[in-house]
Each structure stands twice: as structure tokens, then as C-alpha cells.
């Protein structure tokens, strides 16, 4: 799966989790850029991305990811 494909699928998950199809996330997007992306939503997002990609984040990822780009790095590594 290419990084672009991963990003596109991640966008789908965001639409689903935030119930808002107008959201567009890019590599540099952070929690501050998306309305409602609080710590609770973050947990839901983590779980949904895990099930969408069939992978597991580590705890350090959950507390340490700084932007969507870092999220993509981890997914890319796990699914390659």
C-alpha cells in the first residue's frame, strides 16, 4: 500500500469517526487543526485506524504521535 493510499484510507477513517466528510487531513495535520479531536476522540481514532488497517499501535505511539505524518509512518511500517 502506497503512502498516498494509506493517507486516503486514513481520511476515510477520520470522516467516519468525526462523522464529517468535509475533513481533509494531510501529513502536517495535528489535533489542533481538527475540531473535536480531543483526547477521547483520539482513543476512538486509534482503535478505528487499527481495525481499518489490521495493525496495532504501541502505547508510545498513542501518547507520542505529533501529526498525521507520524501516524502514517507507523501505519506504513506495520502494513508493509
Amino acid at each position, binding site marked *: 500500500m502506497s503512502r498516498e493510499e494509506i493517507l486516503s484510507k486514513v481520511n476515510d477513517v477520520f470522516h467516519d469517526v468525526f*462523522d464529517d466528510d468535509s475533513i481533509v487531513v494531510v501529513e502536517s495535520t495535528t489535533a489542533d487543526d481538527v475540531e473535536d479531536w480531543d483526547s477521547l476522540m483520539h*482513543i476512538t481514532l*486509534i*482503535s*478505528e485506524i487499527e481495525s481499518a488497517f489490521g495493525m496495532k499501535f504501541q*502505547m508510545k505511539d*498513542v501518547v507520542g504521535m505529533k501529526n498525521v505524518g507520524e501516524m502514517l509512518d507507523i501505519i506504513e511500517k506495520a502494513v508493509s
Partner: protein
Amino acid sequence: MCARETEAQRDSLITFSEVMLMSTFIELKKNLKKDMTGFPEIRMAITGDCATQHLATAVAGAAYEYGLNMSVFDADYDEIRAQITDPSSELYENRPEVVLIDMCTEKLYADFCNLSANERKNFADDKINQMAGYWEMLLSNAKCKVLQFNFPERDDRVFGNYANSIDASFIFQQRKLNLVLMEEAAKHPGVYIIDLNSLQSRVGVERFCDSKLYFAARMPYSTEILPDIAEELMKVIVAMRGCIKKCVVLDLDNTLWGGVIGDDGLEGIQVGELGIGRAFREFQVWLKELKKRGILLAVCSKNDEDKAKEPFEKHPEMVIRLEDIACFVANWEDKASNIKYIRETLNLGMDSFVFIDDNPFERNLVRELIPDITVPEMPEDPAEYLNYLKGLNLFETVAFSAEDAGRTDQYRAEAQRTKVRESFGSYEDYLKDLQMEAYAGPFDKFHYPRIAQLTQRSNQFNLRTVRYTQEEIEALAADDSYITLYFTLKDRFGDHGLVSVVIMKKEDGYAFVDTWLMSCRVLKRTMEDYIVNTIVSTAKSSGFNEIRAEYLPTAKNSMVKDIYKEKGFTETEPGKYICKVDEYKVRDTYIKP
């Protein structure tokens, strides 16, 4: 609306674990934005020693699937003690009808680890005292029911398998705690244990929790298991509201036995030791257990009646016998019509029926024509019938009384009465011939469970549909400002047991009928008249010359909308009635006191 199983399982779900997956957490969350106009409202409060926000979302979302508009007060993190012990807390301010206490195993373990070796031996006993204390405070401070999670088992393996012999090991104390939780719940009417441990053992710890979520956010449950937990909660909540299964309608060929009785004959059908007969025998054992719990069994089969009955009468390895069947229908009519006939005979709501048939054509026909009935999508292999049906957990209940076990006999006696009735010239002659005798008395402790259960179950003949727990019934019985009455009825065919409940509140200058409900089994026997006579005479002897009464309409109780008027009360405004005791004409009945 308890038809969710039927809808969700149309897509032929077979294996056990798949059955549990009905909605995702995201789907439940989206439900919260949907239109719930017209849905009955229910107020719930959750207090836990872990993060409960997502659980609250999942439960409210699952409530939508059951046609309920649930508002959830979700207390702040780790405030159980403060919320419950302070009568002016936010929890009580929200006047919840249901309170969920969510204590997690992770916290339990942390508490355990802080104790000395000596204290550990008493851990379960100390913990249960604390928990029972919470329940009692909740029950006395709020008119609510309490839902308590038990503790999903986690063995720390510090002692390995030897932990089973060490009373100061965590797993020893945790298992003991889960056991004493059951014992204490049995002593506390109004408290219901939600068996998370059972759920965890079905799906496995790996699926049940996600450790990083607990460490990062104090969430003891994985996102993927939240819908299952919400489902368990909702099943108990709708059972509290009277929505329970009361009758299983069974097909025969290849459902109750292997083979076709009409083709294979008595010796050829498989039940017991022959062929795949053990699977059917085990299935029958389970159905018989349901019958003993008070679930009615009915037969709906495309067969000649005498052939269909033959195995029940003559096959030595059949577990279910004719006397276990409340209503037996075997003919060549379509099954939907036959099920409607069974429903009329047993006089139960369609949503309390489950239809079990191995044939997909029949299942689809029945689903199509009777939307309210629950029709499990059966697995192809009869060896899987049992695990599949157990997995659906269709028979949730919140009460059990000794009378439940005899329910089938009562319905069978009713079927006999129907036959006798047909042979009498006039209905009055028939009623006379029944030799009915009734008893009326104030609530007593022997009958508390049955009275509470009737207030929970009765939907049709129920004037105001007020639900009471056993504890509330006990309190009413002891309260001087209430007049309580229960009624039993028997006739020459058998004993109906406790069939009606009346609760009157003593107001200034009049008695108000808070509750009048009656079992539909005894409709139109002049029992209604006997009860109204008793209401009036009891009010009179308590010093009242005026009775006020009310009809509150629900989706199911239209049968009694005019009953007060019919029995001689005067309507003052829509649904409100009044009766002057000294002007009341005692009504004729065929019932002797």
C-alpha cells in the same frame, strides 16, 4: 421494540463470535444524532472508577436501536463514593431510573496490591460490604434500579496454578468476589449483575481489553467490545421495562428431531442415540429448561396432527412431551397464520415470541408477515443450534418466581377450558360450570416476588403501567398511605395463582388507583367485576367515599381504555375517572370469594 436480533441477523450469521458483532462503536455513536422523537425516554447514570465516557456513548447509542431515547449522566472519573454517599450529588439531581456502577478489575487489582498478606484473605468480603453499602444507599436515596458489573477475571500468575490453593492470591479473591456478588444481588431486589466476566470468557481477554487504552486513558474496555457491553446492558434494561420473551414456537422435522416424521416414521427419526440424534436431544433438554423457567413452548408444524404428536407420545428418547407444550398446532396452513392463532390462544404480545425453524423459507415468510416476532437465523448444522441460540441471549429476565415453573400447566388448562366452552350453550352456563373462587388480600411477603414480576411483565391489561421492583413493593406494603390488594383465582380445572394487583394511594378525601393490572389469561370471566367490587368495598372500609382512577395509554394497553367507564365509573376528563362509593352498584360475578 425488541426485534433487533431479527433484523441484525438476517445476513445469516453462523458462528458464535460473529453473532456478538452487531453495530460498531462508531455506528452507535452516530445513533446519538438521529431523530428520537416519539421514543420513550429513560434516564441513566454511570459512575465508575475508570473512564466511562465511551461506555456512556455506546449505551445511549444502543438504546436507540431498542427504540429508547436515553439520556446518560456520566459522573466524573473515580467519583463513585462521592456521587453515591452524598444525597445532594449530581447523580441524584439527575433523577436516574437506572444507575450503572462500573468498577474495573484493573482498579480492583491495584487495591488488592496495597494490602498486607493478612488483609488479602478478607479482600472479597471487605469489598462486597463496600459495594452492598453503595447499592443500599442508591436504592434508598433514589427510585432507581442498580446495574453492577462483575469483574472480568485476570490472573496475575504470581502463584501460577497454585493460586487456586492460596486464599491470599488475587485470582482466589477475585473469583470469590464474583461469587459473593451473586449472593448479595440475590438479597437485594433492584440490583442486577451484568456478567462482564462471562462476556470476556466468550470473546477472550485479547478482544475484551486493550492495555494501552487503560494505561493512556483509564479505559478498561477495548473500543471493539463496547457495543457488546452496551448490548448486555440494554437487554437487562428492556427486560426491566417488561419487554421479554415469553414463548418459543418450534418447528418439528429437522428442528426438534432429525428427519421427517411423515416420511421416516417413529423409528426413523433421529433423537437420542440414533444418527445425529444426540444434538437434538441436547437441544430438547435446553428447551425443557426454558419451560421450567416459565417460557412457554408451542409447536407449529406442517404435518398431520396425529403424526406430529406421535413422537411426543411414543418415542422413548424424546425429552419434550405433550404436557410440555402449551399450544400444539400441526396442519398444512401457512406458518404465519398458525403463529397468529397460537398468539391469540396464549394471549401474548407478538414481540414476546421466538420462532425456531430450520427451514429458511419458513423463517423468511414469518419474518415478512409478522415483523414483531424474533426469528433467529439458525445454523445449518444441528450440532450448532444450542451454542448459537445461547449466544443470542434471548431470554433475559429480571424476575423469577415459583409460579413461573407452573405456567405451562396453566395455559394447557386454559386450552381445555376453551374446549369445554365450545360445548356449552351459553357463556354464562360455562362460567357457572367453572366454579370459580377468588381470594383478595393485602400484599404479603410470600407474594412480593410475583407481585413485582407482574408489574414488570403486564402490558395489555395494565391501566397505568407503573413498574415496581420487589423492594418497592415491600415498601408499599408497609406504607400506611397505601392500600394494596392482590387477587388469586382458581376454578375446577386448576389454579391460576396470583392474577391481579391493585395499589391505591390514600389522598386527601379520596383513594387514587395507582395500579390496576390483571393477567389476560382470566379475561372475561367476570374477574374484572369482582376486582372493581373489591376496590370499592376496600376503599369504603378504609373510610373513603370517593375513588379516583386513571387510564394512561401505551402502545399495548388499549384493551382497557374504557374499562372504568364500563364498570360504572364516571369520566371527568379524558382518561380520568371518579366513583362515589355510596352510589356504586355492586356488579354481578360468577366468582365466589
